[in-house]
């Protein structure tokens, strides 16, 4: 049975391997290039300088320039990353959906299911094989992507929680890929024709991903808030710390929101007229502060775990439904 699965899908496996190698040929050199430039410019040290509570003004200038330079040079690279967002979907469409649908469309299920093996066993072995291969592939490109994207998230001050950057690295691609494959298989069992099965996979995957990303992900864990005094600040509090800022605003001393969605800072004293007070405090009153609602940066891997956990669980449900339904396929 495993032999049949391998023999039937070895061409697909070969294509996948070739595609992965081609991607590696593209990603490894660009990744190395980014890392070399990152090290050359001393960006790791720079980030430490810029993220300090009171940046050293002497070093902040050159460091900002170096970061900007790096960002200009490599920001377009993140477009390459988008490729990896669709990879799970492609695996689902071309590995998952045809698994049963193609068999039924070509009538070969009548051959396969009248041999000595019951179709439930047939389904378990096939689904298992494809799921395992999909996970292996996803591990390779998920972790590979984490390595590749690290300089970008670091230097370009791209938050690792940002929609694309969160989704294309770490362990989430494993969850997405397994889910896409399971959805494809399940769709193929319920609508055993290639086109409908692929359409359901496409729509279902994109729909659920968007829904969860927008509505659920920010609330996987209780949000934290913090108040940052405006008094005495030079620059606005940024996202450099890697926290995922969900909402922000300026509140007055009493805690009432006076300007949602904005942050303020006093700026350098030299830029003000002599004896002038901190402008935002003039505007919003003494004691006004920047308010942030956020998920702390150190929850990144926890969030990765939760997100992939959800998709793995959904995949398990879909596979269970598919195995249960397989005996009804005619």
């Amino acid at each position, binding site marked *: 049975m495993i032999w049949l699965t391998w023999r039937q899908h070895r061409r697909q496996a070969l294509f996948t391997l070739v595609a992965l190698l081609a991607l590696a040929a593209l990603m490894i050199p660009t990744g190395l290039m980014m890392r070399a430039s990152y090290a050359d410019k001393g960006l790791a040290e720079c980030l430490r300088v810029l993220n300090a509570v009171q940046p050293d003004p002497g070093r902040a200038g050159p460091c900002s320039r170096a970061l900007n330079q790096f960002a200009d040079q490599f920001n377009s690279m993140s477009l390459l990353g988008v490729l990896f967002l669709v990879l799970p979907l492609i695996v689902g469409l071309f590995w998952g959906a045809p698994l049963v649908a193609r068999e039924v469309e*070509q*009538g*070969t299920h*009548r*051959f396969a299911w009248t*041999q000595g093996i019951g179709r439930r066993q047939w389904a378990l072995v096939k689904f298992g094989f494809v799921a395992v291969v999909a996970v292996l592939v996803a591990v390779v490109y998920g972790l590979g992507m984490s390595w590749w994207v690290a300089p970008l998230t670091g230097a370009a001050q791209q938050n690792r929680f940002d929609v694309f950057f969160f989704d294309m690295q770490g362990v989430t691609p494993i969850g997405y890929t397994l889910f896409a494959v399971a959805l494809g298989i399940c769709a193929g069992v319920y609508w055993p024709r290639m086109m409908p099965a692929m359409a359901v996979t496409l729509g279902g995957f994109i729909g659920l991903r968007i829904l969860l990303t927008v509505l659920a992900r920010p609330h996987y864990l209780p949000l934290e808030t913090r108040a940052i005094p405006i008094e005495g600040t030079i620059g606005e509090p940024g996202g450099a710390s890697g926290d995922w800022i969900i909402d922000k605003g300026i509140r007055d001393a009493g805690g009432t929101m006076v300007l949602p969605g904005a942050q303020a800072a006093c700026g350098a004293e030299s830029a003000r007229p002599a004896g002038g007070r901190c402008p935002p405090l003039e505007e919003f009153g003494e004691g006004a502060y920047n308010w942030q609602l956020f998920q702390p940066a150190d929850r990144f891997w926890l969030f990765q775990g939760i997100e992939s956990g959800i998709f793995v669980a959904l995949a398990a449900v879909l596979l269970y439904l598919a195995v249960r339904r397989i*005996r009804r396929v005619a």
Partner: protein
Amino acid sequence: MDVALETEQLGKRYGKRWALQDCSLRLPTGRIVGLVGPNGAGKSTLLHLAVGLLRPDAGEVRLFGRSPYDNPAVLPDIGFVAQDTPLYRDFTAAELVQLGGRMNRRWDAALARERLAQLGIPPKLPVGRLSGGQRAQVALALALAKRPRLLLLDEPVASLDPLARREFLQSLMGSVTDSGTTVLLSSHLLADLERTCDHLVVLHSSRVRLAGAVDDLVDAHRQLVGPRHIGEPIAGVGTVVRARHTDRQSTLLARIDGVVDPEWTVHDVTLEDVILGYLADGETTVTRTDWEVPA
């Protein structure tokens, strides 16, 4: 009498339409059974129900006493060649033989290889590139290699030219006569079955019209020619299957149960006469009103 396949009030429905209805049959073991009927009569449905591919919507079907649906235990007993002989087209014949060995506990690979070698099927060519006749032979060899107690073939010769058709049926007969395998073979062409089958089931419009041993069927029917007949009972005639009339004379196909009224001239009939009589009797499912043409 051992029974290979038994159905009772068996029915299968697709949506509102019954593809098979009220089907009660007993097929004894060791027979070559022909399943005949026009396209869409329900032949494939019956075969799929028999091998467990479909779940009955009414009644039951038993294969050597066991229900085949969702029951892998019956699989070793059946060899099934589906319509259009579906095989993995990118597999070579040799690989398919190997595959059968991995998917069946009882598997006579030597038998399959012997047959395929005899027929000159190239072992290293993907079966998708073989001719229709060769592919059908590969499918048959695979089904026979399971050494099944019941071999079911769904329109196995439909796509073959007349020569390949005869060769296929001959080789089929050659291989099952000694082993005592029961064969259920469907076709919409009577000529395919006439020479090979000793038992017959006629399906039409999703119902069984006629079933029985070929000799009995031929024996039980006669063609009667006599004065114009308007439906009154005739001595010695059980049922009138089909009647044709001219102004003065009627020609009947009838099942007889005794000595026929001497007013009628009695002729022997061939199997074909009998079957055509029953097929013509079945009403079509599509009516003229469905087509919006005057009746």
